[in-house]
């Protein structure tokens, strides 16, 4: 039985390599990782914006090539982001924020090259493990999900949305609010069941709903520019790195080996829980590494373990993130929601049937991960000098050019100037939400899943003749609902604990008669 699973997986995988090695697929994979790498290195640019910019370009492409390229941008940017944080102490991309802690001290000790080399090795190890996890886990998961009816689909989506909004960054309740807002945005347009137009307020251009590219580029493009303009410190680096500085010593490799493996495993576990993407994985693995270390005082002063473990963890989780997306049709974060959106635009229904209906896409994607990661290592190691120079491109040059690309990109989706205006409005609202400490990622999650949640909810209610307890009568669905309830209870528990802690602190302060002071 076990051997059977392995041999079919290997046969499918070799088919995937056949697909991914086709010349045009290979080219698009290369293009994707290259753009990802560049975007990752440039301070203030994000993978989300780059992916949504290229989304209109994929309309005319074959589905396989489109998905390979978009995915390549995502994991490519992870490689680039590490350079930024190790050499400049700039957490350009959230998953690499923790790498700054030990990566930058290493750079100041003149060991930046070593840190980068360890990062590259760790990234590759982590990514390979994440891909392997996907090879064996995703088909299995989708087989279970085949038995899902509308009730199960609806409740697992609910679980995904709730996990995605509460486990991610910032306040849980605000995350849920953003998800609900995304669901609401997904409702805009003509209702497929009744033909009634909803939330269009008589605007003809909204009859087809909110454009996903406008939403993504508004929230992750224009809103980010509004936030960063004149706030990005100019980058001055005199770090000169060449290929030969990047050879790590045997001792460094030895110290980094086990942390790398631990990070990999933590990352792959985090990937399976929706909402806990690479950022959380890297923080958790750093914390664990520091806790089990015999010399925890070295952390923060250039411990190579503090670079190896979180980076491996990030990459393993980045690849693993694709598992729920491709096997269940449940995206874990905004990036995955965008990939799902790209699939839907291509006319491919995401869900458990994806692997069997479109083996080319699934196995081709997995094979391309490996190819892409190898390309990235080759892009990074010999060309490190180029990337270091790219780091110094100032923001004042970047954002006006990027703004123009956004305008043209949104326009080209439907050849409509209305969409550009829509993007601007979404961007301004998105910035207001950022100022009010909301995180925009769950909006996109809700937006992509919204129509499918509603459709399946309607179907479930049709089957059960309007009995809301139907969700509890079906065992699998009941488990998902129970998990949702658990998530909510845990969050309330956290909130109560924080409240009592704050109250205690206030009480102590008033007793001592001290003015409130920041904790050391």
């Amino acid at each position, binding site marked *: 039985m076990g051997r059977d699973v392995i041999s079919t997986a290997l046969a499918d995988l070799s088919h995937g390599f056949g697909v991914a090695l086709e010349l045009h697929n290979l080219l698009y994979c290369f293009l994707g990782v290259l753009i990802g790498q560049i975007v990752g290195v440039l301070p203030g640019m994000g993978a989300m914006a780059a992916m949504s910019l290229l989304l209109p370009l994929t309309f005319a492409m074959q589905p396989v090539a489109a998905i390979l390229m978009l995915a390549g941008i995502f994991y490519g940017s992870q490689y680039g982001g590490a350079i930024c944080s190790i050499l400049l102490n700039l957490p350009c991309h959230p998953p690499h924020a923790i790498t700054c802690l030990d990566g930058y001290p290493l750079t100041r000790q003149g060991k930046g090259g070593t840190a980068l080399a360890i990062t590259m090795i760790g990234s590759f190890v982590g990514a390979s493990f994440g891909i392997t996890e996907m090879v064996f886990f995703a088909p299995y998961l989708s087989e279970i999900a085949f038995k899902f009816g509308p009730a199960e689909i609806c409740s697992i989506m609910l679980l995904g949305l709730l996990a995605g909004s509460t486990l991610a960054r910032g306040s849980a309740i605000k995350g849920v609010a953003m998800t609900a807002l995304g669901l609401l945005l997904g409702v805009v347009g003509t209702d497929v069941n009744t033909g009634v137009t*909803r939330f269009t307020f008589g605007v003809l251009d909204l009859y087809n709903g909110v454009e996903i590219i406008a939403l993504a580029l508004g929230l992750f493009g224009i809103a980010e520019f509004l936030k960063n303009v004149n706030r990005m410190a100019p980058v001055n680096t005199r770090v000169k790195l060449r290929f030969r500085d990047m050879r790590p010593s045997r001792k460094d490799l030895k110290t980094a080996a086990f942390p790398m493996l631990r990070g990999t495993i933590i990352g792959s576990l985090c990937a399976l829980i929706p909402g806990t993407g690479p950022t959380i994985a890297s923080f958790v693995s750093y914390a664990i590494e520091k806790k089990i270390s015999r010399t925890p005082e070295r952390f923060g002063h250039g411990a190579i373990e503090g670079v190896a473990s979180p980076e491996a963890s990030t990459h393993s989780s980045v690849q693993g993130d694709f598992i729920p997306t491709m096997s269940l049709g449940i995206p874990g974060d905004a990036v995955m929601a965008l990939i799902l959106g790209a699939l839907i635009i291509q006319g491919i229904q995401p869900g458990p049937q994806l692997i069997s209906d479109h083996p080319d896409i699934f196995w081709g994607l997995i094979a391309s991960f490996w190819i892409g990661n190898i390309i990235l290592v080759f892009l990074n190691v010999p060309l490190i000098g180029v990337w270091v120079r790219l780091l110094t491109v100032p923001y004042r040059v970047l954002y006006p050019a990027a703004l123009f690309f956004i305008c043209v990109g949104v326009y080209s989706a439907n050849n409509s100037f209305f969409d550009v205006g829509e993007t601007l409005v979404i961007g301004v609202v998105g910035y207001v939400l950022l100022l009010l*400490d909301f995180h925009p990622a769950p909006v996109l999650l809700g937006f992509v899943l919204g129509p499918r949640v509603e459709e399946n909810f309607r179907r479930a*209610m049709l089957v059960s003749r309007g009995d809301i307890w139907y969700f509890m009568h079906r065992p699998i669905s009941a488990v998902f609902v129970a998990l949702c309830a658990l998530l909510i209870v845990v969050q309330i528990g956290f909130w109560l604990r924080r409240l009592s802690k704050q109250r205690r602190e206030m009480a102590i302060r008033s007793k001592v008669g001290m003015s409130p002071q920041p904790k050391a």
Partner: protein
Amino acid sequence: MLREWKKKREVFAGGLIFLFGLVAIVEGRRLGVGSLKAMGPGYVPMALGILLSVLGVLIAVAKPALPTFDQDEAPLTAEWRGWGCILLGVISFIVLGKYTGLVPGAFSCVFISALGDRTATIKSALVLSAAVTVFGILLFYYLLRIPIPLFSWGVT
């Protein structure tokens, strides 16, 4: 100071979410809610509207969360020049792109938004926008063939 702003911010945040909820409730009622047995087009909007307005109230009354690891607590200063230039840049792309073609649209979009940076000069913005326009025309007009004429007058 920061604490004060945070408290106020939570009230604004909750209020905004509450407002979104109200809009959804009003629209949901207009569309017809129906019942669980026969759901109308307004059922889901209504449900989301109620959820949003409840969440809005909760956000407004709850104590602000302690700063988490990745919150950048940058001091809040209005950045009118940057904001205004970015907005105007996009608006100019829409208006000029629609009525006068891609070249003026691209040029004005980059030029105006580049002026949003405090260190930018007219000259630096001109150089940047000329370079981006040339590159953009080559990429979008000749390579990707987007259907905006290079120059035009009036609605095409």
